[in-house]
């Protein structure tokens, strides 16, 4: 093995031009893979993040309309136990529709109440307050920017809300928020959980429990875990993937096409290596012949060429990873939106890079298989006869 390795290394060193060319070929293949891979992944990540990054990814709510989850703390515990690794940012939400009346206008809104601290995980409300402060007392609310503009309301004003059960209440606006989604800014009115529970008379009950997961693409599996754990037909578990089928099929289309590109890149790399090594077998046939005449066994002689493929693969993968990462980095740094933010965020997925590099090494070794077989068939007599 050591001798075969050393001979392989010397063969590669002795034809530096060829070696450089083939390493460059592999490197470009690997870097294209990494570049396209991280581009697509980065694109998808940012797309998914924009879509569901600041929204609940799994929601547990009562089957029956208008029903409440009574012991929300116990349920939250059960939910969390279903998959504690993945589940994060659990928050119980009490909500109900209401009509907002001002002196001259009215609007239908959704009143939502939660524990501000727990809600910070998903909604990051305290970062989204653009005027005033969070509503911490009963009869205080915060309002979306668009709604406040539409109704010409601002911090310090008082509004009246009427529930479908015709209960009315007066609320002081303590802050204006911007959740960066127009439809929410137009329709949500938020408050602390106690205030809403009192106004809607739900007692201890909450409308739903919302949460996020670490791996957003595993949301459906985690939702399944939760359903099993809860084992309660009165509750339904929904996840973002069910509700965003179109987005998901777009993403998987993208993934499939990037995979295709990568497969073809790899095939061309393999063909390149195989043909260069095949030429190299011819070039080195004298050496192989004499090694065999001196008693080197066929498998050992073949190993020399397999190792050449392997070494080329390792070298090419190494250079390719460096090239691919710098390519991705340059792309995210220099290709920007008009506001200067990068069009596609720089994203390094080491496991993907590792797989790409691994495939390159395996493919290179595999590509050396045909030359290696030719080597084992080479008869030393041919070499010795023909000088």
């Amino acid at each position, binding site marked *: *093995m*050591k*001798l075969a390795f050393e*001979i392989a290394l*010397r*063969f590669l*060193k*002795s034809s530096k031009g060829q070696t450089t060319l083939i390493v460059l070929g592999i490197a470009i293949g690997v870097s294209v893979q990494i570049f396209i891979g991280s581009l697509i992944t980065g694109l998808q990540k940012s797309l998914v993040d924009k879509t569901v990054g600041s929204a609940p990814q799994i929601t547990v709510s009562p089957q029956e309309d208008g029903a409440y989850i009574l012991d929300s703390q116990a349920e939250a515990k059960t939910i969390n136990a279903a998959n504690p690794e993945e589940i994060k940012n659990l928050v119980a939400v009490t909500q109900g529709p209401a009509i907002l009346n001002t002196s001259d206008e009215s609007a239908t809104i959704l009143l939502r109440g939660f524990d501000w601290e727990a809600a910070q995980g998903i909604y990051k409300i305290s970062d989204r307050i653009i005027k005033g402060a969070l509503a911490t007392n009963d009869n205080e609310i915060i309002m979306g920017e668009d709604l406040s503009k539409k109704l010409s309301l601002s911090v310090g004003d008082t509004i009246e809300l009427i529930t479908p059960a015709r209960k009315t209440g007066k609320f002081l606006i303590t802050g204006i928020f911007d959740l960066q989604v127009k439809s929410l800014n137009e329709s949500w009115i938020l408050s602390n959980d106690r205030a809403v529970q009192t106004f809607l008379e739900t007692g201890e009950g909450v409308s739903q429990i919302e949460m996020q997961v670490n791996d957003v693409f595993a949301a459906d599996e985690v939702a399944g875990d939760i359903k099993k754990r809860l084992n309660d037909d009165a509750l339904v578990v929904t996840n973002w993937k069910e509700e965003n089928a179109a987005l998901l099929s777009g993403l998987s289309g993208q993934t499939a096409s990037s995979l295709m590109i990568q497969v073809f890149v790899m095939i061309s790399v393999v063909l390149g290596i195989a043909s260069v090594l095949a030429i190299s077998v011819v070039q080195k046939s*004298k*050496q192989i*012949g*004499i*090694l*065999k*005449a*001196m*008693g*080197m*066994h*066929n498998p*050992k002689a073949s190993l020399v060429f397999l190792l050449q493929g392997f070494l080329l693969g390792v070298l090419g993968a190494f250079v390719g990873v460096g090239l691919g990462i710098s390519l991705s980095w340059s792309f995210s740094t220099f290709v920007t939106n008009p506001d200067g933010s990068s069009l596609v965020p720089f994203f390094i997925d080491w496991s993907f890079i590792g797989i790409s590099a691994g495939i390159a090494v395996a493919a290179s070794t595999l590509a050396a298989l045909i030359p290696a077989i030719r080597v084992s068939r080479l008869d*030393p*007599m041919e*070499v*010795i*006869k023909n*000088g």
Partner: protein
Amino acid sequence: MDNYVVEVKGVNKVYGKTIKTVALHNLNLGFKTGSFNAIIGESGSGKSTLLNILGTLDRPTKGDVIINGISTKNMTKGRLSDLRNETLGFVFQFHYLLPEFTALENVLMPYRIANGKADKKSRDRAREILNLVGLEKVENNLATNMSGGQQQRTAIARALMNQPKIILADEPTGNLDSQTTDSIYQLFRKINQELGTTFIVITHDRRVAEKADRIVEILDGRISLDIVK
């Protein structure tokens, strides 16, 4: 029949399937341990064919090659490789050194094929042999950075590395001037006498042949002359 280190029995060699060339005709020939033998004959008579069969590089169409008293007929390729590595040393008309390696590394090659790594002892031995062939000064030169004579002497040193019982040489000095030729044959003789290595050398040079213990002449694949001194 007694103490032959290598022997061919009833060996036939036919080349080609449609147009058949008979290179060797039912040859019986044995070489004694420690002897120095010259094979002569005109071009195309079958000398190289015989030597390659003796060295198990080529297989006879019919007949058997017996090395160290053991028939090679039913040996596997791997077993034959080991046999070549352990008991045979080859010197060809062309040196066939590995140009990617230095003289010393080339000499070590047969040892490393058998043992993988070269230890200190084997390195010392390789240097000693290089000394013997007068190449101590160029032992770290790449094979390509040596003169023709130096390359051929390196090839001889390599053939000696595993202390083979038999050295098979096919016109080893065919490309060298007469002075180098002389020094190489003196070296062969010296090794033959000091180590008891059996030599079978193909040569065109009558002068060289006459210094051998035995001269075998091949003519059209048959032995036409066999002189033992």
